[in-house]
């Protein structure tokens, strides 16, 4: 489990690697909240091997904290499994139709 951070043109590119689950959130939360120090962060989830409801909650809270403090934090999925978990808990919005239609097949 690791969070890699690079900065280009005042945009912080962070990559989550490994798993973000109830077993790892305690270790990761400080590093993740540390991203709020940047004004514009793109968090890449494509290398995330596993994401559960607890990890998804942490990502959702991270996003909400960012917007509360007027920061920009974008989740970049490139990872259907992680996206499915976020979708099935209503944390992510399907691209086409707003919050409506969360097909069960997304989640499986």
């Amino acid at each position: 489990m690791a969070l890699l951070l690079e900065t280009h043109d005042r945009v912080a590119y962070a990559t989550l690697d490994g798993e973000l689950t109830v077993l790892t959130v305690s270790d990761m939360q400080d590093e993740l909240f540390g991203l709020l120090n940047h004004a514009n962060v793109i968090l890449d989830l494509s290398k995330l091997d596993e994401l559960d409801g607890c990890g998804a909650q942490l990502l959702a809270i991270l996003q909400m904290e960012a917007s509360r403090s007027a920061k920009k934090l974008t989740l970049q999925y490139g990872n259907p499994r992680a996206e499915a978990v976020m979708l099935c808990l209503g944390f992510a919005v399907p691209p086409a139709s707003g919050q409506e239609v969360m097909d069960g097949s997304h989640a499986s």
Partner: protein
Amino acid sequence: MDLTQARAIFFHDSRELCDALEGALLDRARYPAGKETYNLLFRTAHTIKGSAGIFGLEALIRFAHVVENVLERLRAGQIQLDDTLISLLLECNDYLRRLIDIAEFDAARAGDDLPEGMPLLLRLLQYQEVASQATSLPLADVCRALPTEKYGACSSRWQLSLRFHTNLFRDGFDPASFIRYLGSLGTLQWIEPVWREWAPLMSFDATECFFGLEITFDSAADPGLIHDAFGFIRADSLVGILPPHAPLSDYRALLERLGEPIDEQLARWMARGALTSSEAEQVRSGRFETVAESEAAPDPVPGLSTAVDAPVKVDTTRSPIPSEGQYIRVEAAKLDRLINRVGELVLASSGTTVLAEERGDLELQESVAAINALVEDIRDDALTLRMVPVKDIFNLFPRMVREISLQLNKAIKLEIEGADTEIDKSMIEKLADPLMHIVRNAVDHGLESVTQRLAAHKPEIGTVTLNAYHDAGAVVVEVRDDGAGIDRDKVWAKALERGLVRPDSTLSDQEIFQFIFQPGFSTAETVSDLSGRGVGMDVVKRNIEALRGEIEIYSKRGEGAMFRLRLPLTLAIIDGFRVLVDGSSFVMPLEAMSECIDLPPDAMQQQTRQINFRGDWLPFISLRELFGLSAATGPQYIALVHYGEARAGIVVDRLVGQAQVVIKPLGQLFKSLRGISGSTILGNGKPALILDIPQLIQYACRREKYSIRQQAAAMNVIKYAESVAGIGCSDSI
């Protein structure tokens, strides 16, 4: 007229009208789209509504009224009868039947609408005049117009409110897995997290759960399954589940359980269409519209019906009750008792015949003969009481085939022949399931897709034919299709693979096809919703055999398949033929016999039990051998019997003559007897066993085959021995 009786007739007639409506909707050939058919449809709905009005059956009137409005528009050419509308009207017809059932058997609920009527009403409303008007009636208004509290909320979806306990994650639960499971039970229409305030980031604990979920869910799954999905977390977390059309009072109760700001939660429900604004208002205030208030409205859907109502006033002067074809409903148990009594009467009268013959009094004999003739008539009449036309179940199929054809996108024509053939009522109930299974198989596996059919130079539309007729004291029901037929080689290969048959066996097509009745036997490459899982054909066979029937399969590759079910006409009384074996009486069903001949003197000497009868070799069995009795000393006879295509002879000591017998089932102790199907008491008061002809024929044929095989093997051994001997000779030279 007695109102109770009039009601009974009304219910009977209404059901017939529903059947007629369904028939007219499904049979496009007899009822082509056109004014005449539309008039018929309209009149049917109108009559149901009108008659229901006489008896004050409110729910029925309300619903029939909306259906009638749509049919009126159809009649006026304002809408088209397309597949969607046909499906909708069929569903409405089912709902009408439900309402009729409830009105008849549960008078207390006769005025109530059922929850499943609501979605139908909403779909029907799309066909009403509002749909064509520039300002269409918003759904919410329609809902408001309908008596809300009786229906519950407008929404036809499940509404779930989950508030997870803070320890959810630490206890090892993952809400994502609940949602995934829920997704397998239906379609998740809307998911929205509801957050609790979390601790400042400095003291934040990410393993704590801070959210709940609001879910809208579309599912036809068993409510128990949906409730069970949350069984594990129910103890700690708050799980609120509102089924489709839940009463508004339940929404209020959940609101109070949640203990959250009322307006926020109401807004969530409204945002996803769970509640309309008027419903939300009622939930907020806790004052729900009462039934009386809602019924005070002049019409369920204002502005819709007044226009169409004028030309079609309910004609209460005309009696809805037809003067002919009246029926009396009789309890089935009473009928059974009557038939039992008639059975006893038949027995008693044969006893009297025997006595009269012994006395030699001609006048008495004449009188007894007259009584006997009457008794026979009574027996026939009594039996016909239980007979119902097979169309009672055949009529289930047009609907089923239509639905399957839509589902599979195959063009299918269903032809029904011999629907008036009568069959014992107790059998017809048990026949429906097996028959349905066979038809479903025929449609799903038998009939090919349109492209495959065209490639095979067949008509684009596949045909499934249901046929019934009487044949040799049996009722035959056939299911024929002109599809691809059963692949004999595939069945053979599968049977080999499963070790059901040896590779060197020689079996007829008929015998090979019988393998499909093995449990778990399927040659289908793809398993569909309908069939192909290899489950069921064994059950079909078992059900048919329980009715003392049998199934034959005929199939020609590329030309189709036919399942022929042969069932006994009735289960109670038969015309029998009495024979004697070693002084004991046996009875064989007369219809199974073709003739009796003398047993050729040397027939019992040969190992192969066969006789040459008019050029055909027929297998035979001796009842003395079968029941382990000593060989006969005097001359014997062969009764030739048949069942379906199979024929065999049964060797007996004496032929006595015809007798009517009432079949009495064998007790548990004798259930395992082979070759005996029941017992009876003869006219002289002595018992006799009834021979199970199909089983005996099967036994004879099997034995014949076995002995032929044995002989062939013996011949091979001899040939082999000769050839070995021959080689030996040549070696020695």
